């Protein structure tokens, strides 16, 4: 009996030691369970390539005496950028690049403007072998069967003419030939002479301004607020959700905070991380673009038709350190939509402030109808300026004439209205494109 008890006890001790050895060796959880607990980055979408973060502001195509403009939110824009971006990869310029004869004499063919500037040179997808710089505009020129490219360097860095061989020229020719221009709106340039012709005033555009040459038929748009998955959104901002508390305001606004950073969800989202505001921003321009793109991808992603509008290094009031400021805007069929945008401040520490309020198109509000032309809008702005300033000093500086949509309506049914945005004589005018009534940006 005693012998049997010893055997049982020994067997039990052997089994117990095996079990405890296993637990010590492999841990208390199964491997599959452990793997689910590994901290993985949480995001709405994977960070985009630099060529998808920086995209042109406008393409201007000169064809058969006509000028055609392509903006974000159109298939032609995406198609052109895919082709042009590939071509730019292998182009090269150096400090010795000069203004060649073709650059001086060639006809503009395709102009690509950038805002924010295009980073060029080593480490970027464009002009890979060139020195690092930033470009405001690239002008492809054609003179018979000869081609050239003129690049305008940012910060008044001058213009450089760079080689563009016939093979590359033919590729670009094929690219532009694929565009169906019959259905495209043509544009015309507002020159001082032309402005004088219909206003009778000395008006000086500060830069080349283009307006639709034909009559435009547009309609109001019913919009719907972007609806981001709340749990996922919270996970992108807060590593440990168990430390996050919720505040529900009387108007239904929700605030989430862990005491250090806060996320406010109402019409859009508003995130702030005050502790980070004093961190420095030392990243180079191209690297800052990547960071902006990555943060935007993580915290909401890129809705269709949205493009990065600006990236600047700013010094905010009461702040010792500079900070990067990035803005995104939604475009509907190449027309910017004001009030459907996002902005962020970030630095070496990460995301310090972020606001995002995007709207998607639901449907057109009714039957499209003719809008007031740019001429009528400019004349209205002139009369408003005269009413404000009695007799403004000529020449009047014209900084902007742009057709846009502006989001207004009611909280339950957001609606976008076509408007003319005019900056004349240092004064901003937002005029409803049907009737030219003056709008305040927040009260359409």
């Amino acid at each position, binding site marked *: 009996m005693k*012998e049997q008890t010893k055997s049982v006890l020994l067997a039990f001790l052997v089994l117990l030691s095996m079990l405890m050895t296993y*637990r010590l060796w492999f841990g208390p959880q199964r491997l599959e369970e452990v793997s689910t607990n590994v901290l993985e980055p949480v995001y709405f979408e994977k960070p985009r390539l630099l060529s998808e973060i920086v995209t042109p502001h406008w393409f201007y195509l000169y064809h058969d005496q006509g000028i055609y403009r392509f903006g974000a939110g159109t298939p032609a824009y995406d198609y052109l950028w895919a082709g042009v971006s590939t071509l730019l990869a292998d182009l090269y310029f150096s400090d010795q690049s000069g203004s060649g004869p073709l650059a001086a004499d060639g006809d503009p063919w395709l102009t690509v403007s950038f805002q924010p500037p295009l980073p060029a040179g080593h480490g970027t997808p464009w002009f890979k072998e060139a020195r690092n710089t930033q470009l405001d505009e690239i002008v492809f020129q054609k003179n018979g069967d000869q081609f050239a490219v003129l690049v305008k360097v940012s910060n008044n860095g001058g213009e450089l003419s760079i080689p563009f061989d016939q093979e590359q020229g033919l590729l670009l020719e094929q690219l532009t030939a694929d565009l169906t221009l019959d259905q495209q709106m043509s544009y015309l340039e507002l020159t001082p002479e032309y402005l004088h012709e219909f206003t009778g005033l000395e008006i000086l555009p500060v830069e080349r301004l283009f307006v639709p040459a034909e009559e435009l038929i547009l309609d109001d748009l019913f919009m719907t607020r972007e609806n981001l998955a709340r749990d996922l959104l919270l996970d992108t901002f807060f590593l440990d959700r168990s430390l996050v*508390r919720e505040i529900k*305001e*009387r108007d239904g606004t929700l*605030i989430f905070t862990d*005491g250090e950073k806060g996320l406010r969800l109402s019409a859009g989202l508003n995130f702030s991380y005050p502790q980070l505001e004093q961190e420095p921003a030392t990243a180079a321009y191209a690297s800052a673009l990547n960071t902006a793109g990555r943060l935007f991808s993580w915290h909401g992603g890129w809705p269709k038709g949205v493009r990065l509008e600006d990236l600047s290094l700013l010094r905010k009031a009461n702040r010792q350190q500079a900070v990067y400021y990035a803005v995104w805007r939604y475009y509907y069929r190449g027309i910017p939509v004001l009030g459907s945008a996002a902005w962020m401040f970030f630095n070496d520490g990460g995301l310090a402030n972020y606001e995002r309020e995007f709207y998607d198109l639901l449907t057109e509000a009714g039957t499209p109808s003719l809008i007031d032309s740019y001429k009528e809008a400019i004349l209205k702005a002139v009369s408003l300026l005269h009413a404000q300033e009695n007799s403004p000093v000529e020449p009047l500086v014209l900084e902007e004439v742009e057709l846009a949509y502006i989001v207004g309506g009611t909280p339950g049914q957001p609606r976008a209205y076509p408007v003319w945005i005019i900056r004349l004589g240092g004064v901003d005018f937002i005029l409803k494109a049907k009737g030219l009534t003056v709008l305040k940006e927040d009260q359409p």
Partner: protein
Amino acid sequence: MNLNRAKTVLIVAFLSLNLFLAYHLLLKEAGRLPLAAVSVKELQLVEERLAQSNYFLQASVRRGVQKSAFLSVTPDLSVQVDLLNRLAGQETVAYNQEGVSFYQGQEMEVKIHSTGLVQLTFKPGLIIQDGAAQLEQKELLQRVELALRARHLLPHTARFDYMEVLDRCLIIHYYQDYKGTPLFAGYLKVFVNGDQINSIEFYWLEPLEQVPDQEMAVIPVTEALLRLIEDLGVSPRSRRIIKAELGYFSREYNAEKWEIPPVWRFLTDDSVSYYVNAFTGNLETDQ
């Protein structure tokens, strides 16, 4: 060696092995638990660190393991409603200025802020008793509470916190109690001048729920103290920490409902309260 003896040796060997393994397993499990109580030595070390920053711990602290969870609250408007009902029967001047509602009755003036904060001034003051200035603290408190209770201005969940004298005015502080835990976000301040109560300031909350599933270990009081002096730095003069308690605190929100974190509240001898989030260790401010 016979089989019986061999078994005995093996039993002893495996017993020793099991003891060794069990020790390491339990030690590992214990390390995973963040609920370790504060040892006397740890507390002494923290007291030394505090002293280097000119802070002196003179409060009893709970060294045991503690858990807590966010507490969901909403403003308690019952006192507001009761006051307004009472004023409704009187000749009252009412107006609104910058989001604050003013009610001037014959016996009292009431200011109600959008957050739910009520400031009530008695006209004239509410007499406690002649010679109140000579009363012992305990007796004074009893008189004050009796006077407030008679006017339904002292909720049954109010607990005495501390007193301070400011500009010859005695201020008695109460906090709101939630199931035996201080809810510092809810408070009552009674302003006593001489033998009368001049005014009260009242902000009360209605606790909604505490989700047991979200219960987590709080940081030990020693860690909270270290985080506090990290934030405060060295004090130019000696300050004593006279109370160290675990409770709930958040600033006043103009909101419908919100969650309040557990905090370590440290009260200094100059009547300043500091709130350290008991989950994150961050200093919670009332702004």
